[in-house]
């Protein structure tokens, strides 16, 4: 185990990825603390407000504490366009640990303190606003709570199913195996994204957001288990011929016991590799689904449905800050991939290239 970590941290990419992921997960865990605005905040007058500029130097050229200006929305009668100008009359200084909206820190004690903010009356939008005048930065944090956890939750459903299904099919063999595998192959033969779209679309409307979150998780899991179970079955086929399994059988251990206690633990290194390598797939699937409007629904945030606004041309041309969720998805997926690759190289030296 010690050796594992030593090898892991020797890989610079993997270590960097682990740091990035830790930062991401800590931020979404402390989302309420870091976020400047609450989940339901919206200001119609600040629709598509650009990111706030933060200044360190006063107009007179002196160095000072960081400050920012508020935006005022203007309407140009000739081009019929909204635009924003800074209200230069009033400076708002940035503050560390100011009082903001009330929330429960770590879900336990009530507090109003936040990581950062501005003086009363000021607004700070690190990544601008969306169409409803909601702070993009805060929503990225709330959205990350969905996008980065849904994959893990789906794993908790799909991997046990895949393990047990593959274990039973491989151990029992014969007709049971054939029927079970044909069924798994049939699931794999349906283009997974098509199935995902359809399953998400037949969800009844009018669910609460947590119900929807749960059902989307289950749908993601229902699609992921088949391929995994096939590999497990293949491994079980070879493990079950080993002497210690025969020994267990001869002393009268039950089938369930042999599968659960003797055979499946042998697949653990493959399972760990498969888990790390399949999380990105779930993250991508959820964001794709939400991007199409079939996953997590407004007003709840997820990185996928935040990117939905980037489908409009004027948005991607003039409001590049709306693309930030895409970068975050990319960074998260990349980190998981790099970590997965490294874990595979360590646990499965055969696949490692000398």
């Amino acid at each position, binding site marked *: 185990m010690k050796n594992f970590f030593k090898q892991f941290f020797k890989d610079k*990419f993997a270590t960097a990825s682990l740091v990035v992921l830790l930062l991401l997960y800590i931020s979404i865990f402390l989302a309420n603390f870091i976020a400047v605005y609450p989940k339901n905040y919206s200001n119609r007058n600040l629709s598509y407000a650009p990111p706030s500029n933060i200044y360190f130097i006063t107009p007179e050229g002196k160095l000072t504490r960081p400050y920012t200006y508020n935006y005022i929305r203007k309407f140009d009668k000739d081009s019929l366009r909204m635009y924003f100008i800074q209200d230069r009359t009033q400076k708002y200084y940035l503050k560390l640990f100011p009082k903001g909206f009330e929330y429960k820190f770590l879900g336990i004690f009530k507090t109003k303190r936040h990581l950062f903010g501005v003086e009363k009356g000021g607004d700070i939008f690190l990544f601008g606003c969306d169409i409803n005048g909601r702070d993009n930065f805060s929503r990225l944090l709330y959205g990350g709570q969905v996008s980065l956890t849904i994959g893990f939750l789906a794993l908790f459903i799909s991997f046990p199913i895949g393990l047990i299904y593959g274990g039973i099919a491989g151990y029992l063999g014969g007709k049971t195996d054939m029927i079970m595998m*044909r*069924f798994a*192959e*049939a*699931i*794999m*033969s*349906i*283009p*997974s*994204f*098509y*199935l995902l*779209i*359809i*399953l998400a*679309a*037949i969800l*009844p409307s009018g669910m609460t957001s947590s119900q929807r979150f749960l059902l989307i998780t289950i749908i993601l899991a229902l699609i992921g288990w088949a391929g995994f179970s096939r590999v497990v079955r293949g491994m079980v086929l070879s493990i079950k011929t080993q002497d210690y399994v025969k020994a267990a059988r001869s002393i009268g251990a039950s089938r369930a016991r042999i599968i659960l206690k003797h055979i499946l633990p042998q697949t653990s290194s493959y399972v760990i590799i498969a888990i790390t390598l399949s999380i*990105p797939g779930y993250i*991508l699937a959820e*964001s*794709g689904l939400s*991007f*199409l409007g*079939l996953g997590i629904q407004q007003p709840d945030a997820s990185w996928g449905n935040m*990117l939905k606004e*980037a*489908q409009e*041309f004027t948005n*991607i*041309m003039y409001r590049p800050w709306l*693309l930030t969720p*895409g970068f975050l*998805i*990319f960074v998260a*997926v*990349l980190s998981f*991939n*790099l970590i997965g*690759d490294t874990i595979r190289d360590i646990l499965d030296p055969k*696949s490692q*290239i*000398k």
Partner: protein
Amino acid sequence: MSIWSYILKRILQGIPIIIIVSFISFFLIRLSPVDPLAELRMNPSITKQTLEAEKIRLGLDKPVIVQYFIWGKNFIRGNMGTTVSGEKVSTKIKERAFNTLLLSFSVIFWTWIIGIPLGVIAALNYRSTFDRILTVLSSIGMAIPSFFFAILLLIFAQKSGLFPIGGLTCPNFSNFSPLHKVLDVAHHLFLPTLVLTTISLAGLSRQMRSNLLDVLDSDYVKFARAKGLAPSKVIIKHALRNAINPLVTLLGFEFAALLSGAALTEYVFQYPGLGRLILEAVMKSDINLVMASLMIGSFMLIAGNILSDILLKLTDPRVRL
């Protein structure tokens, strides 16, 4: 076993899978709380007769199991019913499936043309700067969400004006000369192909690299070298052929991933493919269209797998089923 009996066996194995898929696609949609005729009823341009005909065609007055067999029988005969806007499902699917196949083949073609040499160069220059850069680039390529990359390319297309945005053909396509038509389609295919190729390229070049490294380490390559064969001959005649074989198996998986991945790319680029069709159908709860495109998509996937297995059998006679 001759190649023909192998092909026959492989096709026979596909049949039960198709049947199970048909069960899934039928019951999934029929048992969901969606009225299959709701959209038709709402559409004022659909006459009462069409509605009645559809009701009888689907056998909605009979039990579900009977409905399944009616649907199956109709499906095999090529009668897939009408869409909510009154078009024939089969015509629509034919056109869209062709477009998706066109896109997929163009992606697979470019992936192989670019990916294999890249993998080979990286393996031959193992641990060189080129190899390192390729590893980093392929990690990046694998991590970009297809729809996000597609959006970025759309920005590029819009700003540069070099590429058309959306669709497969220009509006006045029918007036073009044959050569101009081909060029026009290629022009429209470029961006979607670029997105999907980038993503599958990463996996393929990596696979090629590690396969070739494995093969280069094997005894028979060492032997070929030891007996004094020219290095280029060792690589081309002995190593490459064996390194490519596993990739042929991957072809089937690649095709499956493409069908799924293409759906989002098609959506962003407004490309008239099967993926976008199924999405539109789902949004309009167009039951006939959804079931038919799910079936055709699965059918294409299974056929792709069978084809890649046969191809493998042809390139590598040692393979046994």
